């Protein structure tokens, strides 16, 4: 069965596809940043990062359970939504951030100390990823989990074919705020200076008195917190999770990071939004099941022309 091309939908539904693509891209970006930051300092793809995201979604669910919000309940009013969501994003950020730090300590630190090859770390990363997925598969009976509706999804206003709803606006604004904070941290703080120094030259940073282990831990922490925040937005938007949710989101976020130029913070942003839009447009035109085919063809083409990705590696060159 071939794909049936339908370009008219790109015209009639352009606004709604674009809007959804931006929302999806914003969630990818929060996860992609974790891949890119860790790659920047360690030259390591942290394949278990997707599971850090998954732990975040589980933490979100646990918070609603603890608060006794059932899936049948009516959406919250705005003021209590802000309160509940603040709690959820903080808990999810903490859960993911802490998991990322523990992960670094357990799966990578010793290998780094022993100057093991990058390949060992990569295998360790994949092992950790499997371990966490399977652990949560057992804990959740690998069932789909429904997340309660926290915010009313009635459209607030309409732009052409796009229904603008509070949850989508919330994802975009929230993610933008987090990028702004991250940018400040990396470019204007002592920690950011340390991250940039280690990513440029680890040995020299040590000689200059940078505590590399501390910088690495904090990089994992920041990446984890961002993934946790991303998971909170994901849950508000999609309202479902399961043990292998990280795989679905992680593959896309990792692809976005590579597309934009892994190691480059701005690249992760550009790559994520580009990927979000490509996925929405291609699944509308060709059918959803062609989405990944198109995505990876584009990735391969970009890498053939520009192996460093759209924006190239820039973290170590201090151009963040």
């Amino acid at each position, binding site marked *: 069965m071939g794909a049936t091309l339908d370009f008219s939908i790109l015209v009639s539904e352009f606004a709604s596809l674009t809007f959804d693509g931006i929302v999806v891209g914003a969630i990818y970006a929060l996860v992609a940043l974790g891949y890119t930051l860790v790659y920047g300092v360690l030259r390591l793809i942290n394949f278990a990062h997707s599971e850090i995201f998954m732990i975040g979604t589980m933490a979100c669910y646990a918070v609603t359970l603890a608060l006794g919000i059932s899936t049948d309940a009516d959406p919250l009013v705005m003021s209590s939504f802000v309160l509940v969501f603040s709690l959820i994003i903080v808990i999810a950020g903490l859960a993911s951030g802490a998991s990322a730090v523990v992960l670094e300590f357990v799966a990578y630190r010793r290998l780094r100390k022993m100057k093991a090859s990058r390949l060992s770390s990569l295998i360790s990363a994949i092992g950790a990823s499997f371990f966490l997925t399977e652990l949560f598969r057992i804990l959740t009976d690998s*069932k789909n989990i429904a997340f309660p509706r926290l915010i009313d999804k009635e459209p607030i206003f309409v732009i052409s074919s796009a229904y603008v709803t509070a949850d989508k606006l919330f994802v975009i604004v929230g993610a933008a705020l987090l990028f702004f904070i991250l940018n400040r941290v990396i470019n204007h703080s002592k920690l950011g200076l340390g991250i940039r120094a280690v990513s440029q030259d680890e040995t020299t940073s040590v000689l200059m008195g940078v505590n590399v282990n501390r910088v690495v831990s904090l990089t994992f922490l920041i990446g984890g917190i961002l993934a946790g925040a991303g998971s909170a937005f994901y849950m508000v938007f999609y309202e479902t999770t399961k043990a292998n949710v990280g795989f679905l989101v992680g593959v896309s976020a990792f692809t976005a990071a590579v597309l934009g130029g892994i190691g480059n913070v701005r690249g992760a942003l550009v790559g994520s939004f580009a990927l979000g839009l490509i996925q929405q447009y291609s699944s509308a035109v060709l059918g959803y099941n062609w989405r990944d085919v198109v995505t990876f063809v584009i990735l391969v083409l970009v890498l053939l022309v520009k192996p460093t990705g759209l924006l190239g590696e820039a973290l170590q060159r201090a151009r963040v």
Partner: protein
Amino acid sequence: MVGVTVAVAPSAHAACAGNYKLYFQGALTGPYAETGINEYNGVKLAIKDYNKTASTKIDADAIDTQASGSQSPALAKKVVDDECALGVIGGMYSGETLAAVPVYEGGGVPVISPSATNPALTNKSPVFHRVVANDLVQGPALATISKRVGKKIFVVDDATPYGKGLAKIVKLNLSKSQLAGTDAVTEGTTNFSSVVSKVKAAKADVVFYGGYYPEAAIFIKALRDNPATKNVKFVAGDGVLDGEYIKLAGKNAEGSFLTAPGLPMKTAAPKLYKAYKAEYKKEPGLYTLESYNAAWFFLQAIKKGNTTRASINKFIDEEVIKGVGMTMSFGPSGDSESIVMNEYTIKNGQMVWVRKL
């Protein structure tokens, strides 16, 4: 390889006297486990009822495929190699069954599925049988319902053998003007926004979904959330008709138009329904009655003194057995000779039987 297993099996039976087993194949864990557990409960209850009076006791065992066709062949090999295994009730879904049947055939293990409905299983193997009507019956019934409730039908499937197969039959039964558009998603997807945009652009008033409840629950929520598609009629087959669908989709599941060859145990076999509720303290699932009866067929074969795989398979091929609430016999193709199709809906958070189709 096939020759070896066949050679091992008969001699092994001697080692197993009085310790025979019937296996269930399906998902006992994983996203599709709800259906599997309800089916396995039916199998266990049948065996329990049989053991009350039987001289040779039978044990129930299960292989947990998580409904995956990539896992089922290896697990089926375990059943083939189990000297005490006389037969299999399963598989639960079509994909895992299609993958496992050649392995069972290699070991001569008779199979009766309570719920696999894909037409590709017809004539698949001399050891395969099923108590339910296949999708060549269910598909046209779904198309008829779709045409009854709306004018422009949008068809979506999940690219599994079951979902894609059912969607294909539905499409064949719609005219060009009735088919508003199509799309296919992948199992496990959570992002239905582009599909919803397509349904909206096609101005469809009915959506048919060929697939299973975990994705259907997410899809129906996405449809109901979009003002342009919130009133579309949602039509789906037996893969969606499950208590988990109601749990995951909440009130969005209300009013879905669903079909299944399976009979509601509550009305078709009220005595068994009571016994089941007493035993498991929960409602039976869609195919619990069919699972009970599939096991019952095997047990009648054993009762008549058949204790080899070959003689049981012959018994299943030839006999007509009156089970609970249904009479079972199989044609040479392995399909059930009685064809039943039912329409269901979801009302006040409950699965409700509507009519016989």
